[in-house]
């Protein structure tokens, strides 16, 4: 081959490369700008800070791996926080998702008043983690609170749920279940995308309801289930506001509500250890990333997308 002929080939390859990628990158431009100009810098800065001692008043001082070493070898509260957070994730995520999916399916079909219910079921999520919720929760789950008053009717002697370190975490799981509004809404939007004629055909064939659920609903809803699973897991690992506000920022009683991010926040803003807090953040990031990666890898086996089906 002569030298002259490779050049146009290369050029045409370039042309095709650009033609292939240009539209996508055009659509990605806002995100790329945002990511590289606004988001990436602070993320890298926090990575750098995790190797420093930084009290936010004076310039950060490089300490190498000292923060990470302290965390894994000497910090009892770090392990405590991990324990609390993992327990919460394991309980709250499935509970909330099942609740949300169940109610979404009930609401999806047949009822004329569905809009009203949908609004009502979303209301608790609107209250978010406001101060009102903190006060309400302490009143509900106190020894002399509403929950125990209701249990009393059935002859059950309730405990001081929220101030007993053995049970306080469960009151937050209940809160998570009760604020199932956003996954429910996403499930509903997903259910709306499933063509109704599929169910009609199944009905004519006499397919029983539960098989319609496993054969039609679940597979077609898989991408949305996957989304909710991944996002709820990430959110649960990062749970902050509810735990912070209900424990008045301390993780009390006896560190039973010491969620990872509550601990991190206190280290950073209360105890002036932003460097250490950054190290904590990166450890959490890696934990979350592992979980997310596993979700994505296994999703190949149970999530199939319409536009990638042959």
């Amino acid at each position, binding site marked *: 081959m002569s030298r002259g002929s490779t050049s146009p080939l290369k050029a045409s390859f370039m042309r095709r490369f650009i033609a292939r990628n240009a539209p996508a990158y055009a659509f990605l431009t806002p995100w790329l700008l945002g990511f590289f100009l606004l988001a990436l810098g602070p993320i890298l800065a926090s990575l750098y800070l995790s190797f420093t001692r930084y009290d936010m*008043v*004076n310039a950060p001082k490089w300490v190498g791996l000292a923060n990470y070493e302290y965390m894994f070898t000497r910090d009892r509260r770090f392990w405590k926080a991990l324990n609390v957070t993992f327990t919460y994730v394991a309980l709250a995520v499935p509970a909330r998702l099942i609740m949300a999916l169940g109610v979404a399916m009930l609401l999806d079909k047949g009822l004329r008043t569905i809009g009203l219910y949908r609004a009502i079921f979303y209301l608790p999520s609107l209250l978010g983690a406001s101060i009102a919720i903190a006060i309400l929760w302490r009143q509900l789950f106190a020894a002399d609170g509403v929950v125990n008053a209701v249990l009393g009717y059935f002859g059950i002697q309730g405990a001081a749920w929220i101030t007993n*370190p053995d049970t306080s975490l469960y009151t937050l799981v209940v809160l998570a279940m009760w604020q199932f509004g956003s996954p429910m809404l996403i499930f509903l939007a997903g259910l709306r995308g499933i063509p109704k004629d599929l169910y009609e055909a199944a009905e004519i064939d006499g397919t029983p309801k539960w098989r319609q659920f496993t054969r039609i609903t679940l597979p077609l809803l898989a991408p949305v289930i996957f989304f909710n699973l991944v996002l709820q897991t990430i959110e649960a690992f990062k749970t902050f506001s509810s735990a912070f506000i209900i*424990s*008045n920022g*301390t993780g*009390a*009683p006896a560190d039973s509500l010491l969620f990872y991010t509550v601990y991190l926040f206190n280290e950073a*803003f209360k*105890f002036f250890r932003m460097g250490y807090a950054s190290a904590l953040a990166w450890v959490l990031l890696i934990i979350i990333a592992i979980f997310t990666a596993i979700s994505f890898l296994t999703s190949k086996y149970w999530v199939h997308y319409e536009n990638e089906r042959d």
Partner: protein
Amino acid sequence: MELTRRRLLGAVGAGVAASALSAVPAKAATRIRHYWWGNPERDKRTFAVIETFQKANAGIEVSGETIGWGDYWTKMATQTAGRNMADLVQMDYRYLFEYVRRGALKPLDEYVGKSLMIKDFDQGPIAGGMVDGKLYALNIGSNSQVIVHNTRVFKEAGVDVDLINWTWDDFARACEQITAKSDGKVKGSDDLSLMIETFESWVRQNGREFYGADGKVAATVDDVASYWQMWANLRKKDVVRSKDKTVILDPPIAESGVAVGDTAMSHYWSNQLVGIQAVAKDKIGAAMVPHKKGGKPGQFIKPSMFMSLSRDTKDPESAIKYMNAWVTDPAITKILGLERGIPASKAVRDALAPGLNETEKLSVAYFDAIQSKVGALPLPAPKGAGEVRDAFMRIGTSVVLDRAKVKDAAEQFIADASDIVERAQ
């Protein structure tokens, strides 16, 4: 015609955009920022002060910035990190040392007597703003601990002990009396096991400081154990608030026993009397922290709030001018009243005296009564004191909940506290 309309629309559009996107008002000759934590009442007074000050000082524009206590420190830390602190920041005794020791505040000594006219103020309260021999914070109100009590319940139970000179034994007896008289409906007191401020008085009554002159923890395991044991005994007699309420840390004052009505006594600071009275059903009274029989004075008078000059200030002269007006200008001190605490200037106190309401009178009377009974101000706390406070509450919780033996927990606390202080240096 067409052109003018378009130009007009453009101008209006730009105006809307500017007012929408930029909250910075037009520049005055100089602009200083004042940042404080507040509540509706305090905010109203402070903005009125700013207006009064600006009227008298045309060249200086003061930007008032406020938010509630809980969020105040997060924002403050962020601004500090960005080297964008307000010129003047409100400081709390608990945080003052953290900020001074890290170098975020400027000393005020060079202005004292020149533009900051505080020479004739009570020196005790002013000294509360000194760290390592320099004045870093101006006292804008003093307070002291107070055992707030429900006067109706006290009367009904026939508690007639001298509430200024009483001892811990008197306190325990009062708790029993009150609980018995009300058939347990109203307990004697909140359980103060987790209140490190009261514990600090306890340590001083034993003749020690919590932090020694070297900045290390000087309180002993015995101090801690005896304190927690005393409360354990009261819990056993069932004359203090239930432990479920006790282990809620830092609850808002509206949830305290005296406010809710299930106990007759709670621990607070004297400048909070007005706030507690606002949420309590009965008339409240003020008592000192009980004394130790034959012990040293434990309680002390401290600044409730400070105003400090930040290292990021660009116009210290104007900032000090504003600061000075705050504590000396009669028009301004009148607006402020006792809301932030008792002023350190006798002249100001005298001027305010005639206009006080009942609860304010109570706090002034209380203040006068304790003057001779209190000890000296403790030495400035080391870095990490905030974390020690958290550890006290955390470890104390396991004692209150019967999950740890008093002695073991006390040992753990002293060990943890020493570690924390060491790590923070």
